[in-house]
């Protein structure tokens, strides 16, 4: 959640942004009306979805690989490099679904997503 709005005394002048990379704080996920739903059976981890996403909202995950000292971000061993969608920033543009050569992503209307499935990765 974004913090309470600040007074003119508390913000930099001229509309300058002096904290680098703080666009991550702006939760554009609110703008979404369709969300990408991932089919793990069809996914080959080609990462084309990650390449084309205009928001960088496809997470790069990896399975735990203790021999190489790598810690995974997903706990599903079948997910490999695809680490799910950053739903706080995904705007639902559907380019990932469009570009996926294996049709592993489908765009589903937000209102169709059942409450219990809202946390789909």
């Amino acid at each position, binding site marked *: 959640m974004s913090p309470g*709005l*600040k*007074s*003119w005394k508390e*913000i*930099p*002048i*001229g*509309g*300058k*942004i*002096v904290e*680098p990379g703080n666009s991550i704080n702006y939760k554009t996920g609110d703008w979404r009306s369709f969300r990408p739903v991932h089919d793990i059976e069809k996914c080959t981890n080609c990462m084309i979805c990650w390449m084309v996403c205009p928001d960088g909202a496809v997470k790069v995950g990896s399975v735990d690989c203790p021999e190489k000292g790598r810690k995974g971000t997903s706990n599903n061993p079948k997910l490999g490099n695809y680490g799910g969608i950053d739903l706080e920033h995904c705007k639902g543009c559907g380019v990932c679904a469009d570009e996926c050569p294996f049709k592993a992503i489908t765009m589903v209307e937000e209102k169709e997503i059942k409450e219990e499935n809202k946390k789909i990765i």
Partner: protein
Amino acid sequence: MVQKIRKAFTGSECSAEAMRQINPDVVAAYPITPQTPIMHAFSQFVADGAVDTEFITVESEHSAMSACVGASAAGARSMTATSSNGLALMWEIVYIASGMRLPIVMNLVNRTLSAPINIHCDHSDAMGMRDSGWIQLFSENGEEAYENTLMAVRIAEHPDVLLPVAVCQDGFITSHSVETVDILDDETAKNFVRENKPIDPLLDVDHPVTYGPLDLFDYYFEHKKQQMLAMDKSADVIRQVFDEFSRITGKSYDFFEGYMMDDAEKAIVCCNSSAGTIKTVIDELRAKGEKVGLLKMRVFRPFNNRQVVEKLKHLKAVAVLERAAGMGSYGSMIFNEIRSAFYEESQKPNMINYVYGLGGREFDPIQAKKIFEDLEAVKRGELGDTTRTIGVRD
């Protein structure tokens, strides 16, 4: 050791000389009469290696101001010059320069706006950007243009201000006329303007900053409030800079400078070169015993309403002269602001407004005398038409 060097310079040469002594990092400009001689003279300095300036010959005034905005945001001390429709062309960027709080200094050689096309002087160009958030200084002659330009750098770059400044002078009348002027030595001028210490420069990669991002209804108003307050605060900074420069030159500087105002009963308020004409008429009329005076406006933005009230309230009749028409407004721009300043006052002069000299129409001593004559009736309370024109063939 302050040295004054006497030169015979046109107003343009005075501005170019100030720019040479300031030695800005970047100048981006596009030619337009009557500003062009400033850039001609300055580009000669660049070619001769007399300055270290990166001179960008852009393809339009819109690009000139855009380049200055980019350069200034990067941390470069940036300057430009323009007039009339050149200023009109860069209008959107003028607001951006001020909104982004960039200390750009611009020489604005006042020339009237088209249509019809006219290369000659009036103040419609400056008036068009009076609410853009730029500080506006007006110059009676070349020497004042020189001084205002040096002071403009200090005012713009002051951390409490960080607003761009326009230094105005009359096109052709001042810019192209040769007068004897006193120029400061390079060392004194350089020490006065000080080294450029940019705030949040883009080129400081250790402290990354973004300029010109999107603002929406959540924060735009707050940013504008900061700008409004900076404009108010700039009056204090202008006062400080005036005082400091005064100690160097021995002359005095003020937002509104009075000539023979102490015991005056009738006065004219105006800015730029017409002030000089009126002063000679005042000398003549004073010799005949008439109590007349002149209040010359040097700073229009920020508008020093308190000082204008202080300096005019004891008068019986005042004529505010404006070299620009407020099309469709009740009275022209400066007139309205002075009048508004007096709204709460119980002691105020009778005031009328003259639009004069549009498009370079000559303003001569005969017109000035006529105005002082007209003010006799105004003294008695017979205002007649509050808003008038003078010098036009009816």
